[in-house]
């Protein structure tokens, strides 16, 4: 790693636009925040134009003098973004546009890089609000992938999925892994631990889930699995589910009542990151039985915190966790329960997972990843003009 703050511009005079309107999204927001933060650290020369919401403009202004904020009010997935974004890019004379989500308006007047995190909208159309949304998602992903000069994605598994849905030259897609926030890697203060333990009443051993709450996160089966573990004799065990849209899925609360677990299951809403970091460390085991992920940040955060992880054997999760997690079939509650039970009862396995998890997590770093993104910006910007014509699928 030779690049340090103050390194020269990618290519002098090249101006790069980044769409940061989804700054506060769960997964994509994390990606954008880290992208901007690390670009600002790595590069103080290249001019960046950041499209952001009005309320974020002030906070983002601290990134550096080479970052220019442009307020963009067009809604996510709106029709107006298709026209307004190209106009802004034209006005700001942007040479390269990075869309950190699959919406890349076809009228964008310059070279472009698009990050497609996952194909969840295409794999699980039943969770989309209507047929039009599926049509829109399919159209946008296909269009973005073909139109962009380079496509970035966050795991080999996502790359396979993109290639499954879009006919594309595999060479055009680069896999650049996400990483965890450094805050999860440091030992929390003792008084914070005491405070969190007391405030959330976590005196017994507990199983933890954190992430957003959507049907494909498979939390219903997790609750069923927890019930099985409970029946196998670990009846002091608790389950803590953290996610801020739990009230949208009342089926989860129903499941808890159906299985008569309301004394042992606790839902928590949004938690500040410092509290979450403590939660990871306090948990006996972190379970993430998702049916599909683009990357799967929460298991990585848990591993970085030294917590054993039980996760699904599908999608990108085996790739992210490597051999440092217990992999289970997410469709069978018995399998999930078995994984949890093994981790909680086998001291040696737990120790092993902890060591392997810490080592595995260290292999991911935002700095390295964003460094690679920056290199790709350079390659795209420097490519001869004909390169733009290769946007149709290569033979």
């Amino acid at each position, binding site marked *: 790693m030779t690049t340090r703050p103050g390194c020269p511009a990618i290519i002098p005079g090249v101006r790069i636009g980044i769409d940061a309107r989804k700054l506060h999204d769960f997964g994509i927001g994390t990606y954008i925040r880290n992208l901007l933060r690390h670009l600002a650290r790595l590069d103080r020369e290249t001019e960046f134009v950041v499209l952001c919401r009005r309320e974020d403009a002030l906070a983002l202004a601290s990134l550096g003098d080479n970052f220019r904020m442009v307020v963009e009010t067009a809604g996510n997935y709106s029709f107006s973004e298709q026209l307004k974004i190209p106009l802004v890019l034209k006005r700001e004379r942007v040479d390269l546009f990075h869309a950190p989500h699959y919406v890349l308006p076809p009228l964008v007047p310059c070279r472009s890089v698009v990050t497609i995190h996952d194909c969840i909208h295409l794999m699980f159309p039943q969770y989309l609000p209507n047929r039009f949304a599926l049509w829109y998602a399919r159209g946008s992903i296909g269009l973005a992938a073909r139109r962009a000069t380079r496509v970035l994605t966050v795991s080999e598994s996502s790359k396979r999925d993109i290639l499954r849905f879009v006919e594309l030259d595999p060479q055009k897609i680069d896999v650049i892994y996400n990483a965890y926030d450094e805050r999860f890697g440091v030992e929390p203060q003792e008084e914070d631990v005491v405070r969190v333990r007391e*405030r959330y009443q976590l005196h017994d051993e507990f199983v933890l889930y954190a992430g957003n709450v959507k049907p494909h996160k498979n939390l219903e089966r997790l609750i069923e699995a927890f019930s099985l573990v409970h029946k196998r004799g670990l009846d002091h065990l608790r389950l803590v589910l953290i996610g801020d849209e739990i*009230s949208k899925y009342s089926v989860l609360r129903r499941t*808890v009542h159906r299985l008569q677990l309301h004394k042992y299951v*606790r839902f928590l*809403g949004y938690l500040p990151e410092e509290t979450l970091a403590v939660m990871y460390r306090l948990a006996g085991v972190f379970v993430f039985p998702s049916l599909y992920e683009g990357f799967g940040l929460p298991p990585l955060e848990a591993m970085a915190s030294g917590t054993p992880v039980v996760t699904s054997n599908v999608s990108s999760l085996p790739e992210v966790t490597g051999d440092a997690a217990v992999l289970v079939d997410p469709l069978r509650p018995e399998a999930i329960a078995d994984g949890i039970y093994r981790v909680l009862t086998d001291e040696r396995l737990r120790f092993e997972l902890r060591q392997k998890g810490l080592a595995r997590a260290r292999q991911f770093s935002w700095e390295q990843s964003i460094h690679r993104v920056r290199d790709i910006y350079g390659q795209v910007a420097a490519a001869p003009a004909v390169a733009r014509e290769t946007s149709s699928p290569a033979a």
Partner: protein
Amino acid sequence: MSAACARIRGGVTATHACGWIRSIGISDFMDLSIIIVSYNACADLAQCLQALHDAPPAASHEVIVVDNASTDGSVEVARRWDDVQVIESGTNRGFAAASNIGIRAARGTNVLLLNSDALVGPGSLDAMMSALATHPEASVVGPRLVDGEGRAELSFGRMLGPLVEFRQKRLVRAHARGDKSVSRRVEAMTRRMQWPDWVSGACLLVRREDAEAVGLFDERYFMYLEDVDFCAAIRARGGRILFSPLAEVVHFRGRSGRGAPAATHAAYQRSHIAFYEKRRPWIAPFLRWYLRLKGPSS
């Protein structure tokens, strides 16, 4: 002894909701945190705390009083009860901010916000808790509020807009005047279980995860309308608001603001404008204009 008792009773209430009995008293999750914001109403506060102690809810619970720098000795009054946790906020930061201080200190799975001028009778809180248990889709539960004479208060409604406000105010005024037909109508309305858009913050039970998910109360409101805004935020996240007439709470309405009517009125107007600016920005200028036209008298 009493804590253990409360725990055992807590087990029974929860089971009452789903008809099941198992391992009574094992849970160490506290079921309910009762948060009372107090500001210069020591007599009411004493009455309120006494009522809670005379007829405590069956669920395991804690009581937290957040005092907004009262000058009438409210803090000393609250400290008379050993099991009441008193937090002094230092300055008068308003109802929303003080409630947030209380929620952040709360340990319970559910949070009850209670005005100091409310009296909770036996069984009311249990009824509210079991409403939450039997309606997993509900995030917030509000009880039927009645005044000292047992007359129902219209403590819930549709999302505020000019038309809704006009209708609500007309009803409330006619009800206060003692208009018989209106009173009968309000009486009938408050006897039905329903899913309104908001319930009053005078007595509001919310699941803590849902309160946390919306970032607690918006502190731009000093007092008034923070409850309507809070409920709107919860609905936006997919939660639902339940009005349950099975629970009844006495609310001596407006006693807490009686000491300084002009200041209370001004606070209401500020909240009123803030609410429209946040939720319906295009109406806000008209509201300002209307309020200026109406003048300072209420």
